């Protein structure tokens, strides 16, 4: 394997691994903060106990996330020096802001965890606000870097490929920033809510005596409602992102749909098999792609024929995109169905098939978020900074990376296994529900 290929694989593995923790690192603080606020407002100690339990899980996930985040940061600099050198000059402030936000999050998380029994209720809740600010702030900062990679602006290149006339504000507030930040953060909230719902569905499933307790049911209803709300918001943000792609990143959209020719009334392809640069045997819904991309069934959508062959992304992202959308729909449908059953057919709501479906949704939520990032990253290929820097030119040629590419993933798997082991040791949501009955 070449050094460049090894470098690409390694950063892909690292980011895929890190994203698992990012999901929870961004969403859990907000959910915990909300639950604790609710417990203070409504004077519900049980809700506070649950928030405490969730925060224990957050710590275990944060530890692994802090380590993988450190590795991501250093690998970017070591394996992608050309990219980081260029990006550092233009959007380095976003990297720095992410660092500031992470610092605040880490610091206050430590204080927050140590002060559950040491501060007053209000003091303790106030400590959660900087954690929320830090986690969401760091996600916003780093996602603006990614959006800048998709729609780079705020600089020009001189004859040697060095950026000049740098306008940091323009670079940070690039066209893709709004849609990408909104879509990604909402999807983290959606996926995390689905995972929490899956955990409580698992508890209900394991419940041996008849219907689950009132508090467990209440928790499941609350999380299912949240999942539906976040899911709808993700879908809305995704629709905006699709329209944005059609206008600003047509190559990515054409690859997602395997659209060969620029056309009006373009069909949306569902399923199918990717063969070369085409999608075969897919279900075609006439005009829907045009409608989703432009708002009109006769809208014109750019096809791969209008993209230089050397600039075309791999059509394999069609799978990731379909997977993401499918999971998003299932993630809204199943919790929605649970809520409907709970209201009109309460017996069905806690039957085994429903609980299994909710449990599976938890896994799907995480996979969906991973698919979303795969669409973004593969869809920008062969560029690392769209139209500016090709991936092959940005990665290190240092052969030492070949060995690293083999060993790091093994350690990631071990760390993930130990994180799950740690979670099993400290995270006991069922006990909290039983205690507070």
């Amino acid at each position, binding site marked *: 394997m070449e050094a460049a290929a090894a470098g690409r694989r390694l950063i892909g593995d690292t980011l895929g691994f890190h994203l698992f923790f990012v999901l929870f690192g961004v969403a859990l603080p907000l959910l915990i903060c909300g639950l604790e606020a609710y417990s203070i407002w409504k004077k519900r100690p049980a809700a506070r106990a649950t928030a405490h339990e969730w925060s224990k899980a957050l710590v275990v996930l944060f530890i692994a996330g802090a380590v993988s*985040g450190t590795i991501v940061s250093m690998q970017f600099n070591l394996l992608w*020096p050309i990219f980081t050198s260029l990006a550092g000059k233009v959007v*380095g402030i976003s990297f*720095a802001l992410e660092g500031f936000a992470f610092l605040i999050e880490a*610091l206050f*998380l430590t204080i927050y965890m140590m002060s559950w029994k040491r501060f007053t209720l209000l003091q303790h809740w106030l400590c959660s606000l900087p954690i929320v600010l830090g986690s969401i702030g760091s996600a916003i900062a780093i996602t603006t870097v990614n959006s800048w990679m998709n729609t780079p602006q705020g600089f020009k290149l001189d004859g040697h490929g060095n950026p000049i006339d740098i306008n940091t504000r323009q670079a940070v507030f690039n066209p893709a920033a709004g849609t990408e930040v909104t879509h990604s953060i909402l999807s983290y909230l959606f996926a995390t809510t689905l995972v929490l719902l899956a955990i409580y569905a698992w508890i209900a499933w394991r419940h041996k005596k008849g219907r689950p307790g009132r508090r467990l049911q209440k928790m499941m209803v609350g999380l299912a409602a949240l999942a539906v709300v976040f899911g709808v918001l993700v879908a809305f943000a995704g629709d905006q992102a699709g329209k944005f792609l059609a206008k600003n990143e047509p190559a990515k959209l054409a690859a997602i749909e395997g659209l060969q020719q620029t056309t009006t009334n373009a069909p949306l392809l569902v399923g199918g098999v990717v063969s070369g640069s085409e999608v075969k045997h897919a279900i075609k819904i006439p005009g829907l792609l045009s409608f989703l991309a432009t708002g009109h069934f006769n809208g014109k959508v750019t096809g791969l024929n209008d993209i230089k062959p050397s600039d075309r992304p791999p059509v394999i992202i069609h799978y990731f995109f379909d997977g993401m959308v499918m999971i998003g729909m299932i993630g809204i449908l199943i919790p929605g169905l649970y809520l409907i059953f709970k209201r009109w057919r309460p017996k069905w709501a806690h039957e085994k098939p429903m609980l299994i479906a909710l449990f599976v949704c938890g896994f799907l939520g995480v996979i969906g978020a991973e698919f979303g990032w795969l669409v973004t990253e593969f869809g920008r290929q062969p560029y690392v900074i769209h139209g500016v820097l090709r991936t092959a030119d940005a990665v290190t040629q240092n052969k030492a990376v070949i060995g690293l590419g083999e060993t*790091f993933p093994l350690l990631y798997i071990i760390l993930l296994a130990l994180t799950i082991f740690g979670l099993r040791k400290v995270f006991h949501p069922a006990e909290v529900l039983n205690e507070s009955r």
Partner: protein
Amino acid sequence: MNLVDASILAAAIFFAIYGLACSVECGIALSFLTGQQKQTSKYFTPLWEVTNVFLVFGFTTVAMLFNNALPALSHALLSTLAVGLFALLIRACVVLVLFYWRPDHFPKWGAWLFALTCFTIPLSFTAAGIYLITGQLFWQTLVGWMLMLSALLGIVAIGWLTINDRSDTRKLLSNELLFAAWLLFLGSFLPLSILYSGSHLQKWPVAAIDLLSIFGLLVAYLATTGRTKFKLKYYAGLMGLATPLLLALANRPYLVHGKIKLADAFGAASYAGAFLLGSAIIFPLVLLGFWLFIKLIKQPSR
């Protein structure tokens, strides 16, 4: 001082703080090896991993502000820093096992692995720092070896002093003796090797390290003879913070000694001021947080 010097000092401060945090962790690891975990178990928490944020910050500062040097640095330091990254991952695994498996009883292999990784991480980053100061990998020069040994002694001294508040002369190695050995090394062998090697490091920061070391020896002597109640760990911490800063100053005007100048490497004129201002604002907050953290550890829960 201009923006470029301020930037390299900011990076040195973040690395120095990370070095201190690592040293304390090494102290905890040493306590496990010497069977003193009962004294230090309250300090052993996976939350230590959050101190990695200083490493990220230090590294981000160098990579973002001195971005012109990044391709050269990446090529020279990939293997050196990869060792630290491996150790970082392994330590996280070991911490999770030790903390959640049987927190009351550490298996010997776990304690050894924890200690090994705890030492490897700061030493790997020290090796990278040595490359910046000497322009060569640490094993290639005498100054490199001296700096590495001095870092090792410093980590042991700071870690040991932090976990052993009071001196015990019955021990094989008393706190004062360990501290004095580090300072002797830092104050005599290191400057001598710098002089001997004909290095072009600036002289006054090296002289300042000398002076601080002599003063530290005096403090250690006073502490040994019981004439002062001043805790050596604070002085050791101060030395741990000051030494990387002074070495960064001594290395001016170079980022990589004799190879890349700071001014040539600096490529963030458009936002370096905002970055440094942000760091200056956030720094007191970080100190406040750590103060609160220590207070909370000591305070009993309600």
